[in-house]
């Protein structure tokens, strides 16, 4: 039944979109054990910077994406320095509240007139959407771009974390800060690096998102951030492949529910399934249960 395949592709597109954001989320959590609520809003800033890049500053698309990534990397480091580092050894919930505050700040600040302004801006794509027909299926160049980007991100992260010294430092820091220090790891820099990379990925996700769903506004990051976070948890928060897996599953569940069950109940059913999965695998699908030391 060709329409089912159509919907599967729709689901994959949505899923990979979530994956773009979820990867950054899960990576930061993996190292710092912090749910960075502001991630969705860094994603928004990235989308805006990219948009300004290719529509107002005359940059070519790849350069615009890179600019967005650089700007957001800096933004991420600054946020970490100001709002999270002071709370690093405080109760975890304090950092979470701080993240919430940063998220709200980015949203409201961006909606001020002299910043991005509250308007919903239509994004004119800097390149045309191309559709390839494989039999009766339609695949667009944007979908391919998103898919390829997720793959690249995944590969970069896997390589970075398991094959480089920086990655090793990240893994060490995620286990024990003091031990890491004793081993000569600069914990501050490692964490900053983590945020920089995570934010850069969020920015890339933001620009691609703005291309796929061509509209940007200061509050655009709330829902995608929430869904991506859910996806990351679903797959096992802190586990890189888990983010992609969780995102793909969420994309499929949402799309299939909307297409074949009920478009109204979509979110309700998606989250109900999430809860069911968590009841069966309490730490996410790929999650490892860390034994509690008594």
């Amino acid at each position, binding site marked *: 039944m060709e329409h089912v395949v159509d919907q599967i592709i729709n689901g994959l597109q949505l899923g990979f979109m979530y994956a773009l954001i979820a990867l950054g989320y899960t990576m930061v959590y993996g190292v710092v054990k912090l749910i960075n609520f502001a991630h969705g809003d860094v994603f928004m800033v990235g989308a805006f910077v990219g948009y300004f890049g290719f529509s107002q500053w005359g940059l070519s698309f790849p350069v615009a994406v890179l600019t967005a990534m650089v700007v957001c990397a800096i933004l991420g480091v600054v946020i970490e320095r100001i709002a999270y580092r002071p709370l690093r050894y405080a109760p975890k*919930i304090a950092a979470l509240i701080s993240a919430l505050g*940063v998220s709200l700040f980015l949203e409201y600040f961006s909606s001020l007139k002299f910043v991005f302004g509250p308007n919903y801006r239509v994004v004119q794509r800097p390149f045309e959407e191309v559709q390839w027909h494989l039999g009766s299926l339609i695949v667009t160049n944007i979908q391919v771009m998103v898919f390829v980007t997720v793959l690249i991100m995944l590969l970069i992260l896997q390589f970075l974390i398991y094959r480089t010294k920086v990655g090793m430092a990240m893994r060490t820091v995620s286990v024990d800060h003091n031990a890491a220090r004793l081993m000569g790891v600069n914990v501050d820099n490692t964490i900053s690096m983590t945020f920089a990379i995570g934010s850069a990925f969020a920015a890339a996700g933001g620009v691609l998102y703005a291309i796929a769903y061509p509209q940007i506004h200061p509050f655009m990051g709330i829902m995608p951030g929430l869904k991506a976070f859910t996806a990351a*948890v679903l797959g096992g928060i802190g586990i890189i492949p888990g983010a992609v897996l969780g995102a793909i599953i969420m994309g499929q569940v949402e799309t299939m529910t909307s297409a074949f069950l009920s478009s109204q109940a979509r*979110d309700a059913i998606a989250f109900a399934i*999430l*809860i069911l999965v*968590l009841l069966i695998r*309490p730490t996410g699908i790929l999650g490892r249960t860390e034994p509690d030391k008594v």
Partner: protein
Amino acid sequence: MPKATSAKKTILFLAATLAVYALVRFLETSEIINPYWQRVLDQALITTMGALGLSIIYGFTGQFSLGHAAFFGLGAYAAGVFDKTLGQGSLPMFVVSLLIGAAVAGLMALIIGLPILRLRSDYLGIATLGFGIIVKVGMDNSSKFMPVLGGATGMSGTPQLANFDWVFWFTFLVIILVRNFVFSSYGRACTSVREDEIAAEIMGINTTKVKVLAFVLGCALAGLAGGMYAHRYPFLHPSSFDFLKSFDFLLVVVLGGLGSMTGTIITAISWVFLLEGLRFVLGETFIDFRGVIYALILVVAIIMRPQGIFGGKEAGFLIPKPLGSLAGRKGGGNAGSAT
């Protein structure tokens, strides 16, 4: 210096409560406080009731719940629709509707809590967040199974019976209830679950029962607060109970200090007044800075005091009986440790 005996503290607290009540009533009738500030005060007290519920769940039992606004909303709709259709503006029915609001919320908490409360912290947060979203979708489509609920067009018509008297004294009752719960052996079981669940289990505490109890009680309080809200604000709309509202409750409980009733109460009241107060401070030209300043204050406050303003400590009447002297601690009379 000998601390006040608990009997003295109780009398002091009651006296203070009566004094505050009398003061506000006086200010109200002499028109020094106008209906606007009266309404803000009522909203602050309603928020306090709801926040105390989350305080029991998260502050004292350590259950990270991100769906509190959903229970608030369930209580609001339940109480609202009951009083609207069956109440006809009578006061006894008003009280009944509040209890129904609490009961509905509590029942939902029981149903959802039994399976999900075994999840650990962040995952429980996601599960409760998901539940909140499910409830919101249900509210948006409620007109399909019960037209009077209005769905996304909202529901009006609940008799607006909650004036300051009702709100104030119910808040007072809730505070007493929460205090007595926290002081009771159940309350201590809750804190032990928060501190170290495995140790608590080993000591013979039925942690599942305790967690569910705390969750149901906390959500029932949210439902009660919601019912009160429905009787003070003439219109209920699903968007007032979305996950962003749950963050508001969480914020109040954390900023106030986990494990502190005093903190929750004072922060809840202050936070509502702060948000309204920002209108005046900013004036017309800078009104769109309201959200920015609100967010900044949040970040600065939590960085300056990560344990919350009253982190783990209580004040006066809310300080539990001195167990400290038993453990040989100096200055016994303060509540358990801050987390």
